[in-house]
């Protein structure tokens, strides 16, 4: 009798505690009611500390390889007057590179109707690992239909230095996008991550 009577107490206590616990876990009403809260929060957020500058670059005369293993002479690809959008990625980078590639995709979509669309180029900073084949499957994964370049490590370093994009190792990789509007001699240099909308705006502002 005693045993049975005493044994109920803790069980009841447990029940109360677990009910209380689930009560505190009810979602707060505002969250469910406002599905766009995160958009507004994003709009109100301060812009990322990206830096925009105008710079001239001397494109080095090297031949790199595209994602199909075809040789690409960089000076031909980047011939003067040609509009270009260039970024620097590596395929095993899982933090900023997926963002940069997706951003480029959205910019490409946003500029699809423009008469002078840029040629889009992604240059791998990890040529030892990013073979043409690796780049091809990376492009396919994202549905990115533009030129991905790799090459001999020394040639890639030459290119990175020419664009002031060399950071020693790939773990020091920093986000960098270069835009060159039609017939411009200078490039727009965007250091850091920006929104796709901001990149599109930079392009349009410079084009007009």
């Amino acid at each position, binding site marked *: 009798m005693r045993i049975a009577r005493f044994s109920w107490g*803790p069980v009841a206590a447990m029940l109360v505690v677990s009910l209380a616990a*689930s009560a505190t876990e009810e979602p707060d009403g505002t969250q469910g009611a406002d599905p766009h809260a*995160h958009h507004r929060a994003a709009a109100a957020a301060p812009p990322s500390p990206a830096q925009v500058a105008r710079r001239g670059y001397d494109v080095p005369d090297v031949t790199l390889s595209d994602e199909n293993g075809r040789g690409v002479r960089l000076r031909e690809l980047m011939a003067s007057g040609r509009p270009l959008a260039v970024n620097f990625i590596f395929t095993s980078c899982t933090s900023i590179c997926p*963002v940069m590639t997706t951003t480029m995709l959205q910019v490409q979509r946003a500029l699809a109707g423009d008469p002078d669309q840029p040629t889009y180029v992604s240059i791998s900073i990890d040529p030892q*690992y990013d073979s043409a084949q690796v780049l091809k499957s990376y492009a396919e994964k994202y549905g990115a239909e533009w030129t991905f370049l790799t090459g001999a490590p020394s040639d890639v370093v030459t290119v990175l230095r020419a664009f002031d994009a060399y950071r020693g190792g790939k*773990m020091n990789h*920093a986000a960098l996008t270069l835009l060159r509007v039609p017939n411009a001699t200078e490039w727009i240099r965007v250091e*850091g991550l920006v929104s796709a909308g901001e990149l599109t705006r930079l392009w349009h502002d410079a084009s007009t």
Partner: protein
Amino acid sequence: MARRLHLTIHVPRRVPRAIRAGWVAGCLMAAAAGQSAGSSDLVDAGRRLYRAAEGSDGTSIEATTQHDVRLAAASAACIGCHRRSGLGGSEGPVRSPPVTGAALFSSRETPPRRPAYNDASLRRAVTQGIGADGRTLDALMPRYRLTDDDLAALAAYLRTLGAEPSPGVASTAIELATIVTDDAAESDVVVEVLRRFTEIKNAGTRNETRRAAAAQHPYGERRDRAFRRWHLSVWRLEGPASTWDSQLSALYDRHPPFAVVSGATGHDWLVVHRFCEQRELPCILPIADAPPGTGGDFYSLYFSEGVRLEARAAARHIAATADDPAARVLLVYGEDERGRAAGDAFVDAWRGRPVVQRRIAAGTRPTRRQWQDMVSREQPDILVAWLTPWQLQTLSSIASGMPWLPRRIYTAEGFAPWLEAGSPAPFLDRVHHVYPYTLPAANRSRFPREQTWLRGQGLDDLNAVAAAKVLFACHVVGEALADIQGNFYRDYLLEELEHMLDGTSMTSLYPTTALGPGQRRLVTGSYVVRLGRSNQVATYNDPDWIAP
């Protein structure tokens, strides 16, 4: 919802002791069973969300980063930045903070300070980008669309991250193991070098133990605090490879190590590779001629793809430099695991172009007659010989009298280390040799730092290449264990190695080494050299670097 209920169970005093004990045990078991049944599903769902951005309903979750960039599927997964360990990471200027349960759900007292997260503030952080302190999180942190189920699963999974340190670590010592098989030529080298390195590490010549004790206060030097004496176990596997897995299990259960350092086998390393992946046990830089492919595997780190890399480099070299695109190629290799690995890798890299293949029974070599038949019948322009100097000796002994000799003969360091073996005299000038290490300068030792150390330890009679590999593995693990600063999680050790080994200056064994997230081979290229001779010693000349 898995949450920790901090219950104090009051046991009535007047209940007899035996019944009390049984009652408590019953209560605890019921609570544990209830929690693990519900929470293990929840944790699994959280793991899928964290690692693959898969929602509780099986569909991909949606996420927006940098204000308007909509990440697709797996690109949005937490693991990309916060890593498998949950301890975060950095790339260039971008830093991703730790999100383990212990880190998130407690306040941070060092700047930037913030209060502890709870389920409500975690929800605001991942859906709206608002931190526990009310500040807006970096725009790179995706804003996720998550259901209540997703959030519950995520919180449950994050609580498991870092909840327990990995096995093998005590307050003053760390358990490490190495694995050698009884058929491995290098097992003595592995054991000798590791034992000597461990002795020196533990000798305390820099007062490491005293410094570790002195550094225990919160502002102590973290690298000092993390010092542990190495306790090294040598796991010797015997008999057929089919029994290795059960031997490994028994050894592991007796003394689970934090990591496996170096190792050697005469067979395929696949059994050990699978064991380490299954036990989530780091297996750092074994000597393996033909390590298994590492697609997506996490815990096994190799120097390179071994003879597979050498075979692919040869195929690429021929394709890039042979003047005649219709050149006839004869491929000869032994019917053992190493030979087959190199043979198959060559054919694969040769991409459907014609090649005649001849396999030789394991442990044998072609007779002079067989060489004559092979070469005169096929009249190859290029002979690719994944053979040892002993296997090639029957060819070199008759080469000068043969009416037809291939214009090029490809050999590889994994089979024919000519510097140790001497030179194949009659067809010396036709040999293109695949050599993955730093090129030897004339009349200089190849790995001066390592060889100096070995001489100092009286170990200079050991195979220099193998010893240099073991020593490198020792240095790398030693550095990484200091760098993780007391965060003794196996996942974090590998993440640290990925970071540390990108462009390290620690080795002279290979000309370049690099690693990155998910990459598990330090070296991805090789030299192809021309064989020469100077004062009766083989020399390697005119190098081409090939990264196939």
